[in-house]
Each structure stands twice: as structure tokens, then as C-alpha cells.
């Protein structure tokens, strides 16, 4: 009754490449089915941003001043976008640690499957997830009076910068995920949350104590936020510092640098799981 199934071995580089994408597709598809079938994940995806926008926009927002003037909620939204992209690193980390703990990583590694396909699938699924999150947040922003003012082209560039940051953080997430347990990955929330606030996300660094303001200005997140405010035409004068004056190139340079460091590191870490 059993059909004997002969192992298929890739013959050419092209075939190997095609398989990498096929493997990536299968893994990404599995991950996306999770999102669709998991009601609490969907609720999180929809509700969390809405709650955060209301909380920061109206509860704290009533006490906030925007350096250089302007509406706080207009100032806030680019910060929320970038913070959400940054916290996406948690998603990557938790899935990577869970896969390792459940033995999924071991099975992948014991299979004749391309290593890069596994990672590619992870990256695709995370990016689709982030696009959805961003779409929900855009909707929330529009609902509280935020908008873009400098045309669709600039707005799309800003969204591209946000996704570029998320893309860079996939590699940080995979690298850390391969070193941590699921428990410690969940605890990464603790240091990560303040780091997303020690930036120009919610408050201008100008209004912080000197040393804190300096850290905040150089936070990679600040570059993306400032560049987005500029591209969307949202208020938020960044200050006189070099970092603030060069937000746009920095919003490209930081993610590229993160990718250049953490992509090889996570590939190396994955290869060295056999030590």
C-alpha cells in the first residue's frame, strides 16, 4: 500500500535556488495560517494598536507639548508606527525560540531542506505580519485625525523606511532567538519597551535632560521616526544636532548597518548549532 518515495536531490544551482524559495513559501504559508486561525492573535493585531493610539493620543497627549508646535496626535503617529515595527522583533524572537523548544528547528536541521529557505520563510511571514500591523495602525491614525500632507509618493517612502527597519530587526530577532529560551525571549519586553521610548517616538529629545536627549537622538528608531515625520509632513522639529539634521540618510543607514551585522551573525549562529 505504501508508495516508495525516492529522495529528490537538487542537481543544479538553479534548482537549489528554486527550492529555497519553495521552502520559504511553505514555511511562510504555515505561519500565516496561524495568524488567520488564531483569534487572540488577530485581536492583538487589531486591538493593541487602537488601545495604544487612544492611550497616547488622548490620555498622555493632553499633557504633551510638541517642540516647535503642532498637533500632538500628528506628532505621535510616526512614533507609533516605528515603535510597532521595533516591537516586531519580539514576534520574531518568540517564534524562533518556540521553534527551537518544540523540536521544529531540530527537525528542519535533520531534513534535506535548504537552510536559507527556513530563514526566508520566517522573514516573509514576519514582513506580511508587519504590513498588516502597519495597515491597522494607519487606519487608527486616520481615525484620530493624523494624515500625510506631502503626497502619496513621500508617504509610501516613509512606509518603506518603516518596513526597512522591521526587515533589519528580523535578523536581530533571529540572532537573539537562537541564543535565548522562550522564557527569556518573553522577558526581552522589559529592556525593549523603554528603548523604544528613549527616542523621539513620544517626546522630543529636546525636552529631555541633556544626556537622555543625546541618547534618544542617536537611537536608530529616532532616525526612522524623524524621517517619517518629514516625509508625511507631520510636526516635530528634531533639533539642531547632526543626527536630527540627517534623519533621512540615517533612517536608511541604521537598518542597513543592522542587517549587515546581524544577518551574517544569525547565519553563523544557525550553522554553529551543531557545536
Amino acid at each position, binding site marked *: *500500500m*505504501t*508508495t*516508495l*518515495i525516492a*529522495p*529528490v*536531490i537538487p542537481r543544479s544551482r538553479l534548482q537549489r535556488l528554486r*527550492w529555497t524559495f*519553495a*521552502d520559504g513559501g*511553505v*514555511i511562510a504559508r*504555515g505561519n500565516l*495560517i*496561524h495568524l488567520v*486561525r*488564531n483569534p487572540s492573535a488577530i485581536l492583538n493585531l487589531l486591538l493593541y494598536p487602537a488601545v495604544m493610539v487612544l492611550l497616547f493620543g488622548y490620555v498622555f497627549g493632553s499633557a504633551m507639548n510638541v517642540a516647535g508646535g503642532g498637533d500632538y496626535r500628528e506628532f505621535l503617529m510616526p512614533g507609533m508606527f516605528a515603535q510597532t515595527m521595533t516591537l516586531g522583533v519580539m514576534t520574531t524572537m518568540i517564534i524562533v525560540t518556540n521553534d527551537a*523548544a*518544540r*523540536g*521544529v528547528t*531540530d*527537525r*528542519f*536541521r*535533520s*531534513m*534535506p*531542506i535548504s537552510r536559507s529557505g527556513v530563514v526566508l520563510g520566517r522573514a516573509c511571514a514576519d514582513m506580511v505580519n508587519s504590513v498588516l500591523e502597519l495597515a491597522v495602525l494607519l487606519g487608527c491614525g486616520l481615525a484620530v485625525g493624523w494624515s500625510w500632507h506631502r503626497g502619496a509618493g513621500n508617504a509610501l517612502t516613509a512606509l518603506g523606511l518603516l518596513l526597512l527597519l522591521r526587515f533589519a530587526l528580523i535578523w536581530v530577532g533571529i540572532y537573539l532567538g537562537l541564543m535565548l529560551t522562550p522564557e527569556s525571549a518573553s522577558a526581552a519586553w522589559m529592556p525593549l519597551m523603554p528603548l523604544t521610548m528613549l527616542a523621539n517616538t513620544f517626546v522630543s529629545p529636546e525636552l529631555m535632560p541633556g544626556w537622555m536627549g543625546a541618547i534618544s537622538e542617536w537611537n536608530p528608531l529616532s532616525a526612522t521616526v524623524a524621517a517619517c515625520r518629514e516625509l508625511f509632513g507631520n510636526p516635530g522639529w528634531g533639533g539642531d544636532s547632526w543626527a536630527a539634521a540627517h534623519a533621512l540618510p540615517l533612517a536608511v543607514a541604521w537598518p542597513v548597518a543592522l542587517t549587515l551585522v546581524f544577518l551574517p551573525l544569525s547565519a553563523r549562529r544557525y550553522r554553529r*548549532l*551543531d*557545536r
Partner: protein
Amino acid sequence: MERMNSLAVVAEGVRKHYGGAPALDGFDLAVPEGTVCGLLGPNGAGKTTAVRVLTTLLRADAGRAVVAGFDVAARPAEVRYRIGLAGQNAAVDEILTGRENLEMWGRLYHLDAATARRRAGELLDRFGLAADAEKRVKHYSGGMRRRLDLAAAFVLAPSVLFLDEPTTGLDPRNRDEVWQAVRELAASGSTVLMTTQYLFEADQLAHQIAVIDAGRVIADGSPDELKSMVGGDQIDLVVRDAAGLAEAARVLAAAAGRDPVADPGARRLTAPVHDRIGALTEVVRELGERGIAVEDVALRRPTLDEVFLSLTGERTARAEEGGHGEEDRAA
């Protein structure tokens, strides 16, 4: 090339250190094709490390391992086409259905969509999961998950299957289902190497048992050979009244041909016997005739503790859990 005649798994002097203590310290093993080998040992003996080296997940520091005819260090890709692995945790996706899980693994083994679907159907039938194929795995019992995991490891009908503690944490019914699945795999011609902490499990399934301790195999043979090495089955006797202990010990000594080990606090006597049923019948009859009230009489296989005691000459630090392994209690 490297093909070793009719041996599915060969390990020679494999060593692996994590930091200070060696996990494998000169591990040797030879498993003939088409047989089931039980790798038996307590936690921390090196069972999982051995499986990880043999399945290309871990690189050994020294020694040589050949699986399905290929050296695991030199030709890992060739080995991976010929093995299946079911680790200690069922690597199944809870959100997907049983069928979707198997189709996904089939696609990752690069079967085309139609073949993956057909193969998933065959495996669901074979592992008794057809009726629950469209249910999400989160609604599966522990035994069903393990069987699904075995099915996933079996997508390519690999020539060597590695099962790391396939029944740990399962209740007896689920465990029996998994045992049945393992027998199916073995019957289909695959070589199976499974780790276990339980002698009775290895006894049920394996043609060959290798006892591992401190990273090396300290005994290797058929279940019968191993058991006779340890002294065969045991009679466990608990008397109701401590006053009857001395006389019961004499009865048991007569049946066993040697003095039993006594645990006066628990009013328990234990002695190895060779003629299992004959000795048990004699003991029960004698005790009845002498009017010694008995709380419990059991015939059981040696526990892993006793195997270790006998093989290493010293009691391992293992707790008593897992000590009451044997089923066929007669009371």
C-alpha cells in the same frame, strides 16, 4: 563507497564535550539494518546527545559515525535524505490540522503537491489518524500528537528512524498506541533507533538493547541476554503484618533459591526468580498454607535501577520514579 555491509548505524569511539563534563565518552554502537535498537539509560546518560550526533544535529569532537551508509560528519546531506527524526517534543503545529501538518512536511521534503497530499493520506491511515485528519492538532491527545510526529518523520519512508523517548509523558493507553506505531515502522523495513528510560519499553519493542551510562555503552545485547545478565524477573512481596516477615522470607528463599532482599519498614521482600510463574505459584500457595497474610505479590522485570545496580555495581543517583515499571502484577 562508505557503505557498511548491512549495518544501518555504526558509531565508533564518539566523543562530545559540552564545556567540562563529557556527554559522550567513547560511544560505540552497531545496529543491523531492519532491526529496532533501544538505547536505554537514565537522564543525563548521553542518549539525546548520541541521537543528535547520529542525526547530524551535533558535530562530535572525536570518533566516527556512519548512518545509512554515509559518514555523518563528511556527508550530512546524504544522511539527511535517509533518516527521520522524532525528538522528545512532538514537533507538530498545533494550529494546523493533522493532514495539513503532514502535507507541509511533505512539501518541505520537496514532494509535489499531489504526491504530498497522497502521502499525507497514506500516513494518516497507517498511523490510525484518518478519522481525526481534519481536526486541528491542538485538539489531539498526547498519543495522537506523537503518532503524527512519527508520521511526519516517516514521510520519505526513511531507512533509519531516530525516536528520542517517544513515549515519555504518555499514559498507558497512548503509550500502547505509540508502541503499535513503532512496530508498524519496524515491520515496514526501517531500522529504528529509539531512546528510553524504561527497560520494559525496550523489552517490548527492541531486538537489541544498548545500556548507556556516562556517555558510553556499558552493555549491549538482546533483551533476554540483558535480563539474564541482571538476574531475570523479580518477585516483590509485601506482607500485611511485620510479624510474618521472617517466615515469608523463608518461603521466598525456598522458591528463589537465594535469600531475598528485605525492606522491613515497607514489610517488603524482593528476590530474583528464573521460573517466573512456577515460583510465583509456589510462593502464593505456601504463604496461604502457613496463613501469612499478604498485601501484595507482584512479578516484575528488573527496573532500570536494578539493571544499573547490577551493571555498574553502584546505585545511580536516580530517584525511584520509573521504578515500578512492570505491568504483569499478580496479586
